């Protein structure tokens, strides 16, 4: 074999090993189509003390997404669980790659009992729900709360918490945190300069002009994840036209993205693009870079959810005092008041349908949703939970207390949309790309809405994607 031959063979071998991403399907189709593989094997007897029928010595496997919240809070919940079931062995693990780690186990029929399906490696819920891979959590809602006397779990939750995790009326996903989406600013910066947060669109534009004149960029955003800017646009439209605007989008109704309200909102937001009120270079920043620029005082406003404060903990200067506020009202004709904002349950947890210890998984959720479990979570990670009133007696950081205040003011006017849960691709890929073009000034409001609508129509026409209807 001469050198050429060797080279040639190495080339051939390299070729087979070539596309590193190639055919990632791994262990593939699993147990030969055996539908009965896996499933619940640990069943205990139900009693007043044990309403979900947990088998007390059954092991429980918990997989946590190791992201902004870390995993310590979960270990603490697990300790609360074993306090009640001392004979139960808990197998805890934490990963950032939920999808890649767990996909083969779902196929095998041996998934863990509790999964925190979150982060960039989140498994698309549409796929999980349409494949009946998730256990119904309805039983949990009707079980009595662990430590709030006289109430069922359902009665202890904030409004909207059950809706978000429901697919065609079945409660399948427990979204544990309560997240508020709004516009953030530094109270210190505004106080120093004598600025007040604008309640109307005209005031907002006037203030932007003033901020720009002061040598600061009024806005910045995550150019690499421009969907962050879709939130204030849709929120503005919902406040202008009422909650049905969002419902039409969620239900993929024809021309939902081109409604009058969406047009008004897109036209309004186009002004910050046109007038140059966005920090130059923002289209090239990712979320961390843009949030950092904002924390350094290079921009006054940023759109984000209430995880912002803990995400920015390491770079926020002392005394920065970030506050959240609702989007400005378009005008007096708005259907919802200025205070209305988008609050929704987030950070999804699920029990796979084939979990061996399904009852244990449900009861683990009951532990998380106890007053003690919720308060412990808020204390550890500075984030709200879906358990109503669980912030009482917990000292909150500045930003989070502004979230609580904004949420109180919003009250029954709060709204939400869920298309991002139903159709992950629509928000993550299609609306995202449209926002990128719009907020970098490369497209017009009409182009922007057209692109979003095209994305929604594409999802609606795709028969392989299961459709859900929001009531």
């Amino acid at each position, binding site marked *: 074999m001469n*050198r*050429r031959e060797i*080279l*040639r063979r*190495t*080339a*051939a071998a*390299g*070729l*087979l*090993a070539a*596309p*590193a*991403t*190639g*055919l*990632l*399907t791994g*262990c*593939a*189709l699993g*147990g030969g*189509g*055996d*539908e009965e593989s896996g499933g619940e094997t640990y069943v205990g007897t139900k009693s007043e003390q044990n309403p979900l029928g947990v088998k007390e010595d059954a092991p429980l496997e918990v997989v946590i997404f190791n992201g902004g919240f870390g995993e310590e809070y979960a270990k603490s919940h697990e300790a609360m669980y074993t306090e009640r079931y001392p004979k139960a062995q808990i197998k805890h693990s934490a990963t950032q790659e939920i*999808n890649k780690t767990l*996909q083969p186990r*779902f*196929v095998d*029929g041996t998934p863990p009992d509790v999964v925190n399906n979150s982060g960039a490696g989140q498994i*698309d819920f*549409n*796929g*999980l729900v*349409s*494949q*009946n*891979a998730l256990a119904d959590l309805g039983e949990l809602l009707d079980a009595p709360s662990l430590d709030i006397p006289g109430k069922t779990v359902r009665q202890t939750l904030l409004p909207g918490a059950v809706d978000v995790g429901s697919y065609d009326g079945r409660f399948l996903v427990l979204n544990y945190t309560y997240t508020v989406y709004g516009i953030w600013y530094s109270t210190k910066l505004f106080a120093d300069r004598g600025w007040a947060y604008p309640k109307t669109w005209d005031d907002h534009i006037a203030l932007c002009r003033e901020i720009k004149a002061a040598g600061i960029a009024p806005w910045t955003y995550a*150019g*690499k994840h*421009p969907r962050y800017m879709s939130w204030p646009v849709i929120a503005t439209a919902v406040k202008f036209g009422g909650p049905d605007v969002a419902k039409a989008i969620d239900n993929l109704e024809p021309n939902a993205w081109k409604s009058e309200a969406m047009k008004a909102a897109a036209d309004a937001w186009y002004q910050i693009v046109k007038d140059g009120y966005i920090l*130059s*270079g*923002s*289209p*090239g*920043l*990712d979320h961390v*870079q843009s949030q950092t620029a904002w924390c350094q005082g*290079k921009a006054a406003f940023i759109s984000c959810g209430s995880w912002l404060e803990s995400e920015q903990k390491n770079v926020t200067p002392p005394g920065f005092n970030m506050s959240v506020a609702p989007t400005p009202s378009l005008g007096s004709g708005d259907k919802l008041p200025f205070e209305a904002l988008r609050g929704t349950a987030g950070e999804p947890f699920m029990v796979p349908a084939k979990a061996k210890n399904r009852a244990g998984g449900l009861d683990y959720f009951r532990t998380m949703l106890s007053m003690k479990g919720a308060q412990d979570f808020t204390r550890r990670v500075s984030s709200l939970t879906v358990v109503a009133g669980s912030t009482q007696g917990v000292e909150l950081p500045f930003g989070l207390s502004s979230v609580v205040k904004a949420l109180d003011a919003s009250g029954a006017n709060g709204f939400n949309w869920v298309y991002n849960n139903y159709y*992950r*691709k629509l928000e*993550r*890929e299609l609306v995202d*790309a*449209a926002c*990128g073009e719009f907020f*970098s000034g*490369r497209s017009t409001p009409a182009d922007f809405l057209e692109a979003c609508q095209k994305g929604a129509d594409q999802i609606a026409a795709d028969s*392989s994607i299961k459709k859900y209807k929001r009531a």
Partner: protein
Amino acid sequence: MKHGKYPLIITFLVPPLLLYGLFVLWPYLQAFPIAGTDWLGYSSDINFVGLDNFATLVRDGYLWNAVKNNAILLVLLPVLTIVLGLFFATMLNTGGRRGRAGVVGVRGSSVYRLVYFFPQVLSVVIIALLWKEVYHPNNGLLNATLRGIGLPAPTWLGDPRTAFWAVLAVMVWSSVGFYVVLFGAAMQAIPRDIYEAVMLDGASRWTTLRKVTIPLLWDTVQVAWIYLAIAALDGFILIQQMTDGGPNHSSDVIGLRMYNTAFGSETKFGYASAIGVVMFFLTLSVAVLALRAARRERIEYS
């Protein structure tokens, strides 16, 4: 030795072949049947749909956009990398001509050799992070330099006109070092007296490179070409880390499309496998074509 031959071959060859078969060939083979199904990846509920996935694929505009980008990479990545690699390797090995030393590299060539290899030591993810900061539109090294000399400072990764090219530049940057070493090693194997003869004839460096070095390195260039073509059809990790295919799909590649279809925004494993199968055949054909096109008679030294 005759008796010991087969046990030896078996001991050394069978375990790696088994591993290779199990972890490389077997998953590849499985992708073919999966590509014919509507499998959504998280249950054993599978329906055979024939060639439906391939029919969808033909009409998928996002995929064609990705194919176009891979095609551009396929042309530019090998050309740029090989040209730069050959240039640097020549300078390091035969570029210096001072004094009576004959054929040597430029001054400090051992230092350069080390420096060129640096990117090869870094993991791709680290390279991506590093360059994301270099391309930072406001605080990045690149724009600071451009502003310093009074040039306009683009947003690089945030602009569909520049994002793809910015990533291509990183791909070239990170692969050149390896080919400098590869070509350098091959150049060492060229007998010195050939160069000395060329020098006596008074050939310039350029003529030496064109008429002597490249023909004698042809085998190596050919291998480099195939490796780079394969890399160009992939490009997944860098793109995913640096732009995630954006802005507005302007830097999308087939590998990223496939990843997002299965693991990202959807769980369509059947369709993703169909994309994988197409990618497999594309890569295969490109490699075969490259081998054919570059075929030449081999030059023997002795």
